[in-house]
């Protein structure tokens, strides 16, 4: 598939076995996996991902259980697993304790949507010691100066939040945001990957016109829930074929 692309799945959703299978299926097409470690109050997520997190928590799975499942994923060489969770999951456990769990599971990067650039340092330096990348963000609200500060030292990839909104919203790229993506790519040595609002081959193609890649999440969770692992696999295959190089 064209670009540097990621697939978001919620850890242990709909159950640990299906999650691992879906992850392996996803890694056949995608360059990285983004695994959600559920938090009770996911303010950056829309109703689909929030509900999935709620179901995982209601079954009593803890972060440790998610990491045990991640260990079972067969991650091909050159591909990566990122963790996506909220600041409290890391902060209240301690950066070192969380990084140790990540390292053991084979995850090598982390996305914390409620940790903006101004609060990054308290996490970034600790994670770097474990060789774990803390992903940086740019948004439609970022100024050129902020992009210049965020992007040059970025590790892994730069997460470009495509819209003002939460996960599961529709993709609308305004001219200003497109200009910001061009600007970010100019300064970044890491790929600039577009997330939020990528639901199908059409929106993925729009993302790839402007950025180095895309992340798909909400739609994958819906598909996995309604049609199971094989349904998700078929859906991902269709997208990969539509976006073949």
């Amino acid at each position: 598939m064209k670009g540097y692309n990621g697939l978001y799945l919620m850890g242990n959703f709909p159950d640990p076995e299906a999650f691992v299978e879906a992850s392996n299926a996803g890694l056949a097409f995608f360059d990285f996996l983004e695994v959600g470690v559920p938090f009770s109050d996911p303010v950056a997520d829309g109703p689909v991902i929030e509900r999935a997190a709620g179901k995982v928590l209601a079954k009593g799975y803890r972060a440790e259980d998610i990491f045990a499942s991640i260990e079972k994923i067969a991650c091909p060489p050159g591909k990566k697993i990122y963790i996506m969770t909220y600041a409290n999951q890391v902060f209240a456990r301690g950066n070192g304790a969380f990084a140790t769990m990540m390292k053991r599971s084979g995850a090598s990067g982390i996305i914390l949507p409620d940790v903006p650039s101004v609060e990054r340092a308290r996490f970034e330096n600790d994670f770097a010691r474990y060789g774990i990348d803390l992903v940086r963000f740019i948004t439609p609200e970022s100024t050129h100066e902020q992009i210049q500060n965020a992007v040059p030292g970025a590790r892994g990839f730069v997460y470009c939040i495509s819209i003002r909104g939460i996960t599961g919203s529709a993709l609308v790229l305004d001219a200003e945001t497109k200009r910001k993506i061009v600007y970010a790519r100019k300064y970044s040595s890491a790929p600039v990957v577009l997330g939020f609002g990528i639901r199908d081959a059409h929106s993925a193609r729009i993302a790839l016109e402007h950025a180095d890649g895309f992340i798909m999440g909400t739609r994958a969770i819906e598909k996995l829930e309604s049609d199971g692992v094989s349904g998700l696999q078929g859906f991902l295959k269709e997208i990969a074929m539509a976006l073949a190089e």
Partner: protein
Amino acid sequence: MKKLPDERGYFGEYGGKFVPETLINALEELERAYRAFQKSRDMKNELKNLLINYAGRPTPVYFAANLSRKTGVEIFLKREDLLHTGAHKLNNTIGQGLLSRFMSKRRLIAETGAGQHGVATATVAALLGMECTVYMGSVDIERQAPNVARMKLLGAEVIPVESGSRTLKDAINAALRDWVKNVRTTHYCLGSVVGPHPFPMMVRDFQSVIGKEAHAQMRKQWGGDPDFVVACVGGGSNAAGIFSGFLHLTKIKLIGVEAGGYGNAPGEHSARMRKGRRGILHGCITYLLQSDDCQVLPVHSVSAGLDYPAVGPEHAFFKDNEIVEYVRCSDKEALEACLMLSKLEGIIPALESSHALGYVLSKRKKFKGARVLVNLSGRGDKDMDIIRKETRI
């Protein structure tokens, strides 16, 4: 003591700005507007004029003679229940409404638990000709129905929040999600000293009028300072407001009262200071009721304004530095205080404020002979259904 928060929005270890990157510039814009506001004589005069002639400030300090005779404690009440809309919340929403207008944002959004902050925001939106959307957990909508009707009458849209525990915490989640979407046109009028910087500082400053007045009133009218100042603490805005007038007087003991609910197990209380540990929720580092898996725990209080799993970061700082003592009052003690004040003084207090009074009454031996100033942060009309149910009146 150095003026807190620091320039990064921290009260010692607590505070900060833990929100999506998309909101960072809006928070900075808000802080700049607030600094400009503080320097502008015109804007300060407008706020002062509205607080006096619209809201009804200053509110009195009343010596509760009957209650004092009965308990052997000299009890003074700062009557925020007499403020327009029935609680201290309006002090903050008038300030933020003017700020929002200054930033040319014509839409206000708010979260509400008991409904008092929602009503106060809807009121200011009506006054300033702004659009208003209030997020309220569906559990709270049910138990605070009169306030829902008031908000609608004032022209606000009330959106029920069905996720999570369907109370205040989830209403804040929903408001934050709205703000991320509409950040260019919308101001999030946060109702307590919680959330990301600059909210804890700004809301405290807007509420500091309570403390300033009370301090002067005690000295001028009531023969001098109190020995204790007591306030209930949900997010902690009424407490932050009244404490701010007495912080410089180290002889005066400050007491913050949390909701003790009906038990010690998770979901039976809202005692963050006793049972919580450091965490991050809704934008700041603070004491948080959380499981060992670092998930936010369910909370309970008979009063919808106190059942919040986190607390303002400045209060967390006050606790660690022993500037304020944080204690608990149970549902039962709060209800008893509510009944007693109603019968002895003819004042029906909000169940939130009843926790502050309930602590003093249940520990009357500790306060024997002392002068105690209680912040009566709101009136109890909104709570009549609960009071009727719980006390079988």
